[in-house]
């Protein structure tokens, strides 16, 4: 039997009775789960304290674990103790902060025209100047042959990769025109998401990845620092390192595989209890098969930063930086101070102001997508080219969303 649910005359696709049962089950388990995780976090923190200064032995153990498991993913200690805390330095007098973000219109086989679009936006602000920041937008329409790669029709993942690449290239391009010191920021990790590819896709990926590394090198040559800002991080690279620390030497091959005693504990859980407002954690390297492609000055590192201004409500975020920033204490301190300054600009919602603005500058709305689609269709018709039609499925969906006289 099918029940049709209505609420104030509108269809309800969700069966709230079914969901409610499951929500109640979830609630029954929540307390036990919270207690379980609290205990795990407490133990993980004890391990951190115990191994905080054991940097060399930990490094050796990670090296051994990598030889047993080349796909191992974990944090790698650097020269700072694991529980190191650095308070917020003074904000530099004259520094330009540059942020970039990207947005895209994905290929849509149900649309009337075959196209996609990559839109990237940048915004730059000088810390010591009262002037309004300047914004830059670059929009690239992809059509015809650009909609195909050697492996076939372009995928959403490839468009996302192009967006990430163009964000980094925009930063490199804009940085050339600015006197140092310059700090460049992007939302999300520095490490490009790889995923699994077929051989042909992998070749496309490699080409774009090479350009991505080139853009990073250009930033380095220009004397700019760069960072990827990860809000509400769920990563557990440090927790994985702590697990390796407690693993007996004769079981090291289990590292990162079946031995995951602190699964569910995140790095942010640990740093919430460790870092005071404005403080950053120790800097860690990243061990992963993908991260190993970032070598020398590009080698990926990260630290956690408590961007909250409230002692009782810590809010750690992860910041990914390349080795050239780690090796330059001035760059590192400036980045730390600027990030705290930027996050404080939005008051009770600590998030870098310029990152939010770069999102606003770059974002492509649904309405804009529709307008671009219409613009292309008009141009084609104007030139006497036959325009395809929206798929029947999409047309019916559109029709059901329209308010008509028959709708109750």
């Amino acid at each position, binding site marked *: 039997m099918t029940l049709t649910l209505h609420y104030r005359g509108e269809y309800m696709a969700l069966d709230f009775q079914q969901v409610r049962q499951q929500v109640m089950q979830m609630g029954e388990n929540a307390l036990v789960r919270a207690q379980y995780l609290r205990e795990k976090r407490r133990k993980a923190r004890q391990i951190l304290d115990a191994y905080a200064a054991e940097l060399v032995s930990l490094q050796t153990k990670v090296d051994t674990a990598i030889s047993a498991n080349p796909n191992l993913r974990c944090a790698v200690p650097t020269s700072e103790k694991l529980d190191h805390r650095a308070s917020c330095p003074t904000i530099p007098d004259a520094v330009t902060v540059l942020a970039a973000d990207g947005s895209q219109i994905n290929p849509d086989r149900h649309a009337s025209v075959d196209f996609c679009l990559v839109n990237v936006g940048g915004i730059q*602000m000088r810390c010591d100047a*009262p*002037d309004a*920041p300047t914004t830059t937008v670059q929009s690239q329409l992809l059509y015809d042959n650009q909609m195909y790669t050697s492996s076939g029709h372009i995928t959403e993942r490839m468009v996302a990769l192009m967006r990430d690449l163009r964000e980094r290239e925009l930063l490199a391009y804009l940085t050339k025109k600015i006197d140092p010191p310059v700090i460049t920021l992007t939302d999300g990790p520095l490490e490009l998401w790889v995923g699994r590819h077929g051989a042909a896709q992998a070749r496309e990926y490699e080409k774009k990845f090479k350009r991505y590394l080139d853009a990073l090198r250009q930033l380095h040559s220009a004397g700019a620092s760069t960072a990827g800002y990860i809000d509400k991080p769920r990563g557990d690279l440090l927790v994985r390192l702590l697990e390796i620390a407690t693993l007996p030497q004769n079981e090291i091959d289990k590292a990162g595989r079946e031995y995951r005693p602190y699964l569910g504990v995140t790095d942010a859980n640990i740093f919430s209890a460790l870092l005071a407002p404005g403080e950053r954690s120790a800097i860690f390297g990243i061990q992963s098969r993908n991260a190993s492609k970032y070598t020398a000055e590009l080698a990926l590192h990260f630290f956690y930063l408590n961007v909250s201004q409230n002692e009782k409500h810590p809010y750690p975020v992860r910041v990914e930086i390349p080795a050239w920033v780690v090796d330059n204490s001035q760059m590192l301190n400036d980045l730390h101070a600027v990030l705290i300054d930027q996050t*404080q600009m939005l008051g*009770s*919602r600590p998030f870098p102001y310029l990152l939010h603005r770069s999102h606003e500058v770059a974002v492509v709305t649904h309405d804009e997508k529709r307008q671009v689609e219409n613009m292309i269709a008009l141009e084609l018709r104007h030139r006497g080219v036959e325009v395809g039609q929206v798929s029947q499925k999409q047309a019916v969906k559109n029709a059901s969303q329209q308010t008509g006289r028959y709708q109750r």
Partner: protein
Amino acid sequence: MTSIEIGRLLRAGTTGFVVGCRVSQLDAPTFGGLVRVPLGHTKDDYQIYGLIHNIHIDDDGIVRQLVTADHVDESVIADNRLNRNVPIEISVLTIGYRHNGIIKHLLPPRPPLSLDVIYQCNPDELCQFTSAGRFGYFRHILRFEDAPKGELLAAHLGQAYQAHNQRANKDWVNQATQELITLLRDDYSTLMSVLGALGDALYV
């Protein structure tokens, strides 16, 4: 004397219209100021006149968030005023129009259209409009319920008084006040409120 452009039309009806403007244009429009809209789509000399009765600055989520910060940077303020799409809306009460050189204090045959340019009237234009006819435009103001009539009249008469005074037409304000007293003779409370506001605007 040239007129200052203060924005473009967002929406309109016969009795009033709303203008959108940039922050950099916000110095020109004032409460009670006379504005005009030359209708771009007609070849005739056809302009609509109105009085600014409200200047509205809208907020959005980010502005609400920024005010919670301990300190707001100058550059952040400039960014929000110049780069972000901060909606500044100026509401105008229609009080007359000009067609082929003749000013009438009647509602216009047609409202202006979207994106028509709105200008602040200069003192010559202000004197020209307010001297035409016998203060017929007062009835649009006195009928208007969405703004404090006394304050609106006082602001308008204050500006018109200065413009006429500069042109040695010192009698204009007395005639205007006399006309208001006549129009409001049966509405004592509004009359007192209008005269009180006029007193503040003209004689302080």
